[in-house]
């Protein structure tokens, strides 16, 4: 049995076994999404604080739905409405949250390291929903689950990540997950967004700046969106990006015939990806969304609730319960 996780701050420090465990545990929750009645009482009475200090609709809804389907209540904290906008420090927000005593916190923040900051100061499980340009662990886990389901396994594929890698937490988290499964990773994009130093992030990475070379032989293509909100310097003109790096049907043909196309969303059609590809048979985008719910339910289930580790077991014999 794996050592219990007390937080999920990133994928960098997860072992291969832990990742496989999380993917396996997502399966019953994938199955659960097909039930007519999608409401469990598993986390009834628990409260999950959904603290999003950076705007996001999809991920926030995904986490809120996951918590809610497990029967938990949610406490929503959004930057626009919270005092954070008025200059209240993260530490004061943390203290406020602590006083409200949620059973777990899901946090998205514009500063890399913010979830770790919170986890060091609170006794409650913290789940990173995306911090700055550092990690977005649940995205990488749902991407891995999607690859595993579609391609039959996770090991040994050629995966190309396409786009602005430098500013992408999704790319980093995926690199940490995939490299542990012997995946050969190709990072492809404009040189200013894909510095060669990225090859040092994990074993099995190569950097290329030409899309044809990047796509050749790929079994999976992960398309990233262009991060306009995180760049300090002048951006690349969209026409330049499109002409050099957009994933078009013609370019997709350079990859393996059954190559899987993934995108973390939201998709900007006509910029990083052509609509025909996004909606085509090789696209796994819709499964990513369902898998996101399953992964997040599995993580909330395992991280939240339960007695403290040293609590005595209930008196009645549990070995006659289904084991």
């Amino acid at each position, binding site marked *: 049995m794996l050592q219990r996780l007390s937080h999920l701050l990133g994928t960098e420090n997860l072992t291969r076994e832990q990742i496989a465990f999380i993917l396996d545990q997502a399966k019953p929750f994938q199955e659960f999404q097909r039930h007519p009645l999608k409401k469990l009482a598993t986390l009834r009475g628990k409260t999950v604080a959904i603290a999003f200090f950076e705007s996001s609709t999809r991920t926030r809804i995904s986490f809120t739905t996951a918590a809610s389907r497990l029967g938990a209540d949610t406490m929503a904290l959004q930057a626009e409405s919270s005092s954070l906008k008025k200059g209240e420090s*993260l*530490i004061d927000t943390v203290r406020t949250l602590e006083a409200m005593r949620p059973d777990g916190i899901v946090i998205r923040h514009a*500063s890399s*390291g913010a979830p770790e900051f919170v986890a060091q100061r609170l006794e409650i499980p913290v789940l990173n929903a995306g911090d700055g340009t550092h990690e977005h662990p649940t995205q990488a886990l749902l991407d891995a689950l999607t690859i595993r389901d579609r391609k039959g396994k996770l090991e040994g594929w050629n995966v190309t990540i396409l786009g602005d890698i*430098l500013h992408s937490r999704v790319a980093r988290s995926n690199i940490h997950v995939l490299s542990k499964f012997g995946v050969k990773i190709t990072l492809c994009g404009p040189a200013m967004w894909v510095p060669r*130093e990225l090859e040092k*992030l994990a074993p099995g990475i190569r950097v290329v700046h030409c899309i044809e070379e990047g796509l050749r032989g790929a079994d999976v293509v992960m398309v990233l969106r262009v991060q306009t909100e995180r760049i*300090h310097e002048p951006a690349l003109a969209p026409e330049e990006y499109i002409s050099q790096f957009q994933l078009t049907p013609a370019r997709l043909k350079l990859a393996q015939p059954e190559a899987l196309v993934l995108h973390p969303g939201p998709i900007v059609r006509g910029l990083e990806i052509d609509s025909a590809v996004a909606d085509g048979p090789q696209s796994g985008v819709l499964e990513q969304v369902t898998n996101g719910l399953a992964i997040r339910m599995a993580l909330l289930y395992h991280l939240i609730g339960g007695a403290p580790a040293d609590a005595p077991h209930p008196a009645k014999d549990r070995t006659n319960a289904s084991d």
Partner: protein
Amino acid sequence: MLLIRNGRVLDPAMKTDATLDILIEGDRISRVGPELDARDREIFDARGLIVAPGFIDLHGHLREPGGEMSETIETGTKSAARGGFTAVCCMPNTQPVNDNASVTRSIVERAAAAGIVRVWPIGAASLGSKGEALAEISAMKAAGIVAVSDDGKPVATARLMRQVMDYCTPLGLPVIDHCEDPSLFAGGVMREGPNSLKLGLQGIPAASESICVGRDIEMALLTGARLHIAHMSTSGSLAYVRAAKRNKLRVTCEVTPHHFTLTDEDVRYDTHYKMNPPLASRADRDALIAGLADGSIDAIATDHAPHHPASKDVEFDRAPFGVLGFETALALGLTELVDSGKLSLTRLVELFTTGPARVLGLERKIAAGEPADLTIFSTEHTWTYRTADSPSKSRNSPFDGRSFRGAPMATVVAGRIVYRR
């Protein structure tokens, strides 16, 4: 009269390394010799200890006026005394900026009233350090500054640097520059490298510093001025400085203890590892140590930068740059440089005494008639540094809780023992 007895007197300036006694009368050294007469004198027994000329810190932030929440001249100098420093050069980025004689005078007066060690102010190079007009440098010189700098920022343009240099040279003032290129710095929070990529923190390439060092050295060549590179942190900068020295330019430089100890790999998200210039790559750190050993680097300076705890207890991005330095400087020098065999003890003492003195155009030595400033330290005493015990108002040190072998044991300023462990 104070007699410092039985200590190993180590004075690079006088080339002394022997067991000697030092007699102090008033604020001056009156005699140095073996087994001096001990009758009717206050005695400090320095047996087993090293007695060096009083250490000078070329670079510290005392925050007063305006930043008293983080430090004052009184608390900062108390901390400096605990570190064995007898003199601190305080940078002008106070509120208001020390860019005119009345601010300089107020610092000097405050230091006379409440300072525990000597305080030698550094005046701003430009008004408000805004990089536009020259500050009132000659008036400040009369009021007591020992150098000029716009520290916190680089001197804004090559043109301005040239003007500052031309102006300061006849005044005999060195120009100290915090070297950085604003366009490359742009929002960065740590050294650009594999670790900044992994942590998702905006990186500052090493070239940001060396480009500016190169620029300043060109201006020094043009003007013949005395240029001192503050808190140098890269091998690229060191290469420029070495070339300048070979060409007999009056260029000097300093390195901080955190830069010869830590690297960018030590950064996780703890804001006690965030300072400017940021922690460098391992290769740069090692190059700096080589430069300390071979004489290319003139001084160790702390860049003691206190920030009150609440201001540092934020996300890494938002935290101010800076860490404490006075109390750990000598111990780090002994542990990282001398104990590891990279430098001799004499060389280390040079970096705290004759090196900084030369930058300021002074002498620092133990001889009759010299000011009675001494740093008495042990190379054996084991202790643990705890910021909670520090007289500083701030706690931002990456070395909190670290154990050392070697410590300042007593600090003598103008003939008085201002600190005793």
